[in-house]
């Protein structure tokens, strides 16, 4: 599909919504083509080729809003969807926060290859399977998925904001566990996204190290008793914790609902001064970013937390208008945390008693930031050394308190393609065995 065809479809959708009675409108048109290889239980299983289309149309009647999504773009379908979107908007309630982004001349972006290298995809995945069998014979590669998605995305609104982006990205995900006789490790998983297949899959994210760790995690026991200790969070797990932090403190829902404990803390110290978190959709460090936000602004890189000071919530246009707080110019994705000054070995050496947290399996945090869950694929740290892997060990704490307590951030970081994260050490977490 050509750029002009795609943007014309988005413009046609706008015209139809205006004809149907919308005061304002926004439309997005995405065509995605995916080629995917699956390997299950260590053997190739599926080669899948999908094509899909998504046409999203949002109509505004004064400040009432209705949105519809279809996956066809012939004239009759667009006309009907436009009429439905306007009808939905009319059925809704006014909300002065509903608005569309200002005019912005058509900008076109492009990154990544136009086509998948299918043979190389097969070879890379085959190499990983062979490597794992040889180096880590106790590992079951439960599921591996390697895909290439070519996407043409077009966005337009009735103010005249227009964007077009073409992208080609490879994605890899692996889930695995170790088994010897009747001893088994927890499953673990990781993944990454990149624009090419230059690197072997074992070097994507931290996969090779996680495979190695799984082989150590066959014979486990819980920690003894319960204590308050340190948590050294690994980069894979840190991604989950940052997601929980956003969901509780800085995201749209907790701010609009008023439940965010940080709602009045913009420009205040909210976490340790060692923590700087950036949202870098434009990279250059990030391979799999994006060029424009879902609500129609050109994406910009932004520092969300700067040496512990809260600079931006991750609010879009609606959330910003609703709360009176600034819109996040980056859209809130492509999260990176700055590296620290100590090596991982130094940080480990300074830890008296705690857990090296490989994966966190827990309930959704409470609105006040309390979290609790199971420490999976994790190790007991004692007197600066990894003592042993643990099972059935639970941790409980508060997210803000934990991030305030962070006293070390590693120099080393792991690149996932859509984010780059270090190891972090914090304290004050309840750790309990059986």
């Amino acid at each position, binding site marked *: 599909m050509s750029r002009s065809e795609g943007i014309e479809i988005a413009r046609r959708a706008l015209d139809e919504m205006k004809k149907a009675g919308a005061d304002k409108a926004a439309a997005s048109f995405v065509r995605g083509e995916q080629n995917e290889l699956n390997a299950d239980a260590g053997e190739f299983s599926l080669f899948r080729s*999908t094509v899909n289309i998504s046409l999203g149309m949002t109509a505004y009647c004064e400040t009432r809003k209705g949105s*519809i*999504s279809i996956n066809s773009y012939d004239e009759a379908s667009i006309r009907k969807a436009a009429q439905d979107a306007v009808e939905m908007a009319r059925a809704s309630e006014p909300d002065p926060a509903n608005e569309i982004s200002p005019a912005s001349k058509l900008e076109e972006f492009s990154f990544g290859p136009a086509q998948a290298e299918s043979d190389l995809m097969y070879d890379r995945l085959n190499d990983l399977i062979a490597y794992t069998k040889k180096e880590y014979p106790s590992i079951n590669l439960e599921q591996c998925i390697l895909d290439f998605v070519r996407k043409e995305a077009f966005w337009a609104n009735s103010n005249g904001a227009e964007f077009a982006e073409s992208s080609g990205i490879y994605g890899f995900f692996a889930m695995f566990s170790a088994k010897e006789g009747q001893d088994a490790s927890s499953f673990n998983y990781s993944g990454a996204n990149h624009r090419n297949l230059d690197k072997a899959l074992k070097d994507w994210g931290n996969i090779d190290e996680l495979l190695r760790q799984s082989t150590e995690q066959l014979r486990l026991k819980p920690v003894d008793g319960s204590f308050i200790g340190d948590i050294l969070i690994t980069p894979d797990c840190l991604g989950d914790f940052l997601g929980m932090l956003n969901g509780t403190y800085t995201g749209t829902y907790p701010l609009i609902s008023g439940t965010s404990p940080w709602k009045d803390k913009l420009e205040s110290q909210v976490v340790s001064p060692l923590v700087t978190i950036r949202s870098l959709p434009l990279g250059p460090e990030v391979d799999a970013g994006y060029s424009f936000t879902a609500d129609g602004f050109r994406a910009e890189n932004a520092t969300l937390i700067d040496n512990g000071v809260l600079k931006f919530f991750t609010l879009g246009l609606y959330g910003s208008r609703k709360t009176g707080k600034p819109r996040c110019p980056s859209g809130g994705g492509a999260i990176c945390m700055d590296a620290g000054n100590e090596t991982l070995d130094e940080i480990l050496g300074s830890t008296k008693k705690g857990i090296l947290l490989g994966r966190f399996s827990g309930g959704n945090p*409470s609105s006040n930031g*309390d979290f609790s869950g199971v420490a999976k694929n994790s190790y007991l740290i004692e007197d600066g050394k990894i003592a042993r892997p643990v099972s059935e060990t639970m941790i409980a704490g508060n997210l803000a308190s934990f991030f305030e307590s962070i006293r070390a951030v590693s120099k080393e970081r792991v690149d996932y393609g859509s984010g780059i994260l270090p190891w972090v050490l914090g304290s004050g977490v*309840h750790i309990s065995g059986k």
Partner: protein
Amino acid sequence: MKYMDIGRHRALFKGYTELRIQENSSRTVSLLNGDVVGNTSSSQAGLSARSYARGAWGMASTPELNDAGIAHCINRAWENAEILGRKAGKKSYDFDARPGRTVTDTDGLNPMPDQKALISFARELDAYCKTRFPRLSSRSLSISCLDMEKNLLTSDGAEAWSLTPRSMIYAEFTTEYNGEPVELYTVAGGGSRFGNVFKRPEDLFPELDRLWERLEKKALGQYAKPGIHDVVLGTELAGILAHEAIGHTVEADLVLGGSVAADYLHREVASPLVSLTDFANTALGEPCPVPIWTDDEGTLAEDAVIIDRGILRSYMHSKESAARMGHRPTGNARAFSFTDEPLIRMRNTAILPGKDKLEEMIASIDNGYFLLQPSNGQADTTSEFMFGIVEGYEIRNGKIGQAVKDCTISGVAFEMLKTVSMVSDEMSWTCAGMCGKKQSIPVGMGGPAVRCRINIGGRS
């Protein structure tokens, strides 16, 4: 979108092939503190073909619902299977064909609701909450309706049409206590169209009253004491236990991928009081919340008796996993959207009711907990499970006491289930959640109340 005369496309099949023409339609309305923050409708229609050749699967999909699109996908799926099969050199299995030719009975099914009706319904509920519960610091109401409609044709004789609707209403209340937010939710709904499940907003007012009462108690709650405790798990928790702790572990793809359940077939994994079945469409004489008559590989769906009086009896299978293990396919292969391949999924997984009374179960505990409502959960290949708990109470001297704050429970299922000492004679079902496993999909979960010993994570 019933696709007429799908059978004529069988002539295009080159070998084992499934052709699925599918449409997912959804309507959602979300209110937050009275504002309509979500008012969306979605329709995703398309087709996919999946073929099996030389021991490998190939699949192709397109939104182009016409003869050219169908022919293209059937050819491409076969090519993909051949390409992968030739490269990978895999063993090929003969599938046990049990073709389904079922058509969902839609007598009495209401039409899909229009958005105006949903907004009006939600606003009435919201108005009730705003007036009746002035101490709420935040209230959220969502209505979610989903239809999955599938036309299926397979080379081994299946031809089926299914419509699986689901309609849910979620309400979440937040209040403040000592300057901190405390929240709790309730969910209502079932496996049918909105007008069949919900008649009038006022029918839900008592449930909203109960939610407020429960939230007030939770606001005064204390942290649960970490460690192993005697607990009674409420019916909703038993359902998620059946799903997370046991169900995932016995999905045959996970068994082949390393689940410890591979070592336990025909062995004792639970107390003799525990029986667990993944029901296809009818349980104990009643329709299940997510009824499956023919699965997405065309297998006529039958119940999978997983645990029978404490003994692990079977797994849940697709055609290929059943062939690999020499078992019978159970009709557990399902796909969420037309672009997705069928995976082994649970359908309606439940622990069967027993003979005990809930009151007696609580009275039997001197010092423990009565845990009622889960948030989310996760399974593991080791059969270790985890659930978040958002509503629970202490039990002291056989009586329900103070509420507890949010906590997490975990255990190793095949050890924890052996501690089950009482099972209530009543059970309930829910289909509110989505099971995630490469693709999300609606599932039904059910269970009675269960007395057992479990590990609670909290603050000492």
